[in-house]
């Protein structure tokens, strides 16, 4: 965001709160920055919904950049498309859930839930603010799906319609199951504790034998659902790992559970003792709690998107000059398609019209449109800027230059998981040690007293049960996941934290990752600019939304804006306006009327002409992010660094100067090259972390051990990845990596802690001295210490690294 100090003096748009420039529109003593905002206000006030503006100040989103053409929703009339999108339909009403990224404040909720006041055919609507979703029920006979979407778009809430919405809202069922298991375990554990309490304080004698027996039997009954339902997932996981001839953390847990349960049954039914049923319940309850803690999800983020989620669902096809809207799956080679302003090209095609301006920001991260001439191939993923163009489809959407990546093996199989979680590595050794100790205890005592031998054997298994061990990992990683999320690095799951700690190679994409559009360097060549000319320029570029205009606008800084006449922006060409009788043009070489072609190796040229006289040009280069050099410096000693770029190599010198010599540069990399480069690194035993942004990095992100997608807006586009990082915190990558490493140390420390407890417990157990009281104290105490230790230490480390602050917002 650019800060305008003089913004306060300007009138703010009543709808969106942006400063109103010359295009200010006044209505009922209210000012609007553009027609779009005024239109939204009118629609709302006509329907008695103006409380929208009372709930929040400037609740709307600026409509200035929105294109008001709703033809792009034509595909919603297709029944196939409708069937895919609707949650439910019968002959009276239909239900649909939309994802609306724009939902951001209380007013949004209020307005969207009062939709039926604007259109009476809407039955009801319900907003889920966190997920940014709205479920709408409507009379499908009176209002079509397209009309509904257009209505939403008109009031500034255009839904994002994607193929991935196919299955509607897929609430993760496993999540609910885990909560149910936890609730059952909690209920049983609490009651068992109650019935076991007299036992601890020898009060059972006072109550009499009848009560003691009853309490024990009640405990058995309550333990059944815990053992046979709540702990289910541990049995499956342990069994699966044994089948693969591995020993994971769940194997010793299951061993402990089984030993505890059988021993307690034997105690209760044959020795009339209390057993350890309450400890068993507590153990499973805490374990499940750790699991829940680990399952933090970022509901609005999607990590597993493929190209289908980005491409339009349908496209306008021309058959004998007749326009028809077809879903892209029905597109075939040779079809002629019509792509309008701001529409995405779904398939590699050849341009039929004279020229087109394609914005490939989606693919490469570079947002300045590229102009294409007739007959040139335009790759899928580009966005047309300007007048509608006709294209002939060359390849099916699923087989394009970029989408071919998704057919690559790297997307077929699971990520190369060479890095085993720390807990699994330890659990193997742990299990064998515990078994060895328990068997030796058994043999030692069996010469003296067989019943004592059995007791020692089971006691070791019970007390050594790695509950604290098993809890240290989920609580450390779960908490880290939250801390990363607060720092705007959103990880897909906790496994990524561990992987991040173990990477030794970092691979960066250049465009959009190390360079940033907002850090452009601008050189002006030509006649020197007077203050008046600069004011004039400001007037021209400040109204345009073109990325190059924005950069020149920033370069000019804050200055007064001159009043110009006949302002006109020709899409893909430039801007034209009249000032004191003279025509001022800024834009491409042809547009400004510059005679000969300038040869530049990189960047873009913008020409300025006044009164048909070219007075100079701007040379605009996308610059490195300010933080990039220092970030590279911080990383270069501890990591092997690589840089992949799809561009030519002429920038190498300046990059090398800024970024240092320890980085490996690779230019002219196609998306497939990038993927292969990462696969090569893996093959050479490197653990690589890839940071990239565009669709062209999708393959490399997938092939890397950890793929991090950079995005300017977290809820916007990002390719499939393990993590999504907000571009503003990119400079914190060294801290993030250091924090991930610190996590490993914390887990190791907490392992030591729980080993210490185990030493005490086991040393008592081998002597056959384990009493229910010691067991009841030791087990929860060790779990709680570990949980407290991990949570406190992760927060402390994060505080030290500057990832969180003490002040709560």
């Amino acid at each position, binding site marked *: 965001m650019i800060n305008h100090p003089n913004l306060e003096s300007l009138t703010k748009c009543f709808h969106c709160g942006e400063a109103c420039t010359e295009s200010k529109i006044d209505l009922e003593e209210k000012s609007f920055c553009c027609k779009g905002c005024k239109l939204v206000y009118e629609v709302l*006030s006509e329907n008695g919904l103006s409380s929208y503006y009372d709930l929040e100040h400037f609740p709307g989103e600026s409509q200035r950049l929105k294109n008001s053409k709703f033809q792009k929703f034509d595909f919603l009339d297709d029944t196939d498309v409708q069937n895919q999108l609707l949650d439910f339909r019968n002959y009276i009403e239909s239900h649909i859930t939309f994802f609306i990224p724009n939902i951001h404040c209380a007013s949004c909720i209020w307005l969207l*839930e009062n939709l039926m006041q604007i259109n009476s055919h809407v039955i009801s609507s319900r*907003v889920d603010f966190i997920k940014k979703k709205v479920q709408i029920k409507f009379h499908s006979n009176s209002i079509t799906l397209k009309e509904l979407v257009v209505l939403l778009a008109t009031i500034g809430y255009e839904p994002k319609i994607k193929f991935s919405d196919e299955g509607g809202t897929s609430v993760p069922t496993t999540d609910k199951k885990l909560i149910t298991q936890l609730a059952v375990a909690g209920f049983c554990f609490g009651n068992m504790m109650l019935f076991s309490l007299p036992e601890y304080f020898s009060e059972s004698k006072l109550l009499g034998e009848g009560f003691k027996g009853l309490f024990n039997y009640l405990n058995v009954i309550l333990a059944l659902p815990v053992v046979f339902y709540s702990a289910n997932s541990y049995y499956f996981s342990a069994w699966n790992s044994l089948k693969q001839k591995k020993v994971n953390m769940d194997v010793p847990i299951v061993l402990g559970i089984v030993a505890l349960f059988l021993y307690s049954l034997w105690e209760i039914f044959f020795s009339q003792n209390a057993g350890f049923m309450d400890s068993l319940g507590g153990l499973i309850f805490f374990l499940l709690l750790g699991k829940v803690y680990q399952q933090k999800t970022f509901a609005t983020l999607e990590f597993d998107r493929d190209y289908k989620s980005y491409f339009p669902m349908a496209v306008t096809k021309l058959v004998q000059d007749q326009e028809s809207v077809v879903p892209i799956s029905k597109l075939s080679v040779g079809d002629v398609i019509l792509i309008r302003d701001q529409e995405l090209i779904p398939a590699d095609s050849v341009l039929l019209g004279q020229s087109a301006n394609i914005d490939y920001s989606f693919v490469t991260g570079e947002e300045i449109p590229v102009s294409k001439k007739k007959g040139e191939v335009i790759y899928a993923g580009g966005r047309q800027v300007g007048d509608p163009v006709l294209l002939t489809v060359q390849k099916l959407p699923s087989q394009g230059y970029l989408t071919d990546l998704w057919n690559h093996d790297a997307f077929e199989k699971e990520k190369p998981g060479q890095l085993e979680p720390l807990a699994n590595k330890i659990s193997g050794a742990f299990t064998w040690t515990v078994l060895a100790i328990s068997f030796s205890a058994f043999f030692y005592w069996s010469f003296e007293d067989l019943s004592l031998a059995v007791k020692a054997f089971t006691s070791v298994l019970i007390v050594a049960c790695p509950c604290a061990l098993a809890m240290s990992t989920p609580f450390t990683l779960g908490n880290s996941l939250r801390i990363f999320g607060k720092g705007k690095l959103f990880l897909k799951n906790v496994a990524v934290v561990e992987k991040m700690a173990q990477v030794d190679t970092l691979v960066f994409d250049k465009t959009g990752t190390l360079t940033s559009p907002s850090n452009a360097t601008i050189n002006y060549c030509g006649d020197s600019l007077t203050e008046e000319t600069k004011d004039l320029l400001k007037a021209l570029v400040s109204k345009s939304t073109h990325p190059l205009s924005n950069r020149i606008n920033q370069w000019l800084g804050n200055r007064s804006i001159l009043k110009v006449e006949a302002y006109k922006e020709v899409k893909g060409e430039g801007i034209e306006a009249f000032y004191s009788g003279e025509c001022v043009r800024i834009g491409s070489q042809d547009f400004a009327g510059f005679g000969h072609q300038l040869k530049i190796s990189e960047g873009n040229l913008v020409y300025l002409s006044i009164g048909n006289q070219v007075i100079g040009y701007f040379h605009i280069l996308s610059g490195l992010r300010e933080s990039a050099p220092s970030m590279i410096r911080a990383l270069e000693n501890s990591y092997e660094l690589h840089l992949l770029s799809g561009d030519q190599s002429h920038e190498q010198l300046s990059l090398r100067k800024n970024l240092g010599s320890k980085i490996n540069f690779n230019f002219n990399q196609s998306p497939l090259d990038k993927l292969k480069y990462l696969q090569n690194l893996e093959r050479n035993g490197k653990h690589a972390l890839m940071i990239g942004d565009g669709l062209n990095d999708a393959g490399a992100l997938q092939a890397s051990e950890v793929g991090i997608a950079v995005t300017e807006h977290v809820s916007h586009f990002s390719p499939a990845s393990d993590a999504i990082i907000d571009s503003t915190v990119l400079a914190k990558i060294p801290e993030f990596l250091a924090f991930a490493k610190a996590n490993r140390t914390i887990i190791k420390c907490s392992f030591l802690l729980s080993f210490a407890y185990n030493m005490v417990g086991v040393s008592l157990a081998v002597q056959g001295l384990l009493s229910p009281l010691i067991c009841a104290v030791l087990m929860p105490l060790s779990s709680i210490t570990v949980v407290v230790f991990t949570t406190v230490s992760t927060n402390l480390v994060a505080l030290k690294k500057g990832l969180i602050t003490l002040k709560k917002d």
Partner: protein
Amino acid sequence: MEVIFLLIAISLIMAATFLYLFFKAMKDGQFDDDFTPSVRILFDSQKKKVKKDQPTKTKSYE
């Protein structure tokens, strides 16, 4: 002391009822969205609102 038998039965039944209610609430989707209802409850429940002469611009949720 025999009254304890009764008390235990009551306490178990009560706890089980709470567990059942929790499951029911979860199935109904009570825990799916824990933010929107907190905002929704603050809206005035006007069905058909005629244009206000003086919009009160004091309310804000910050």
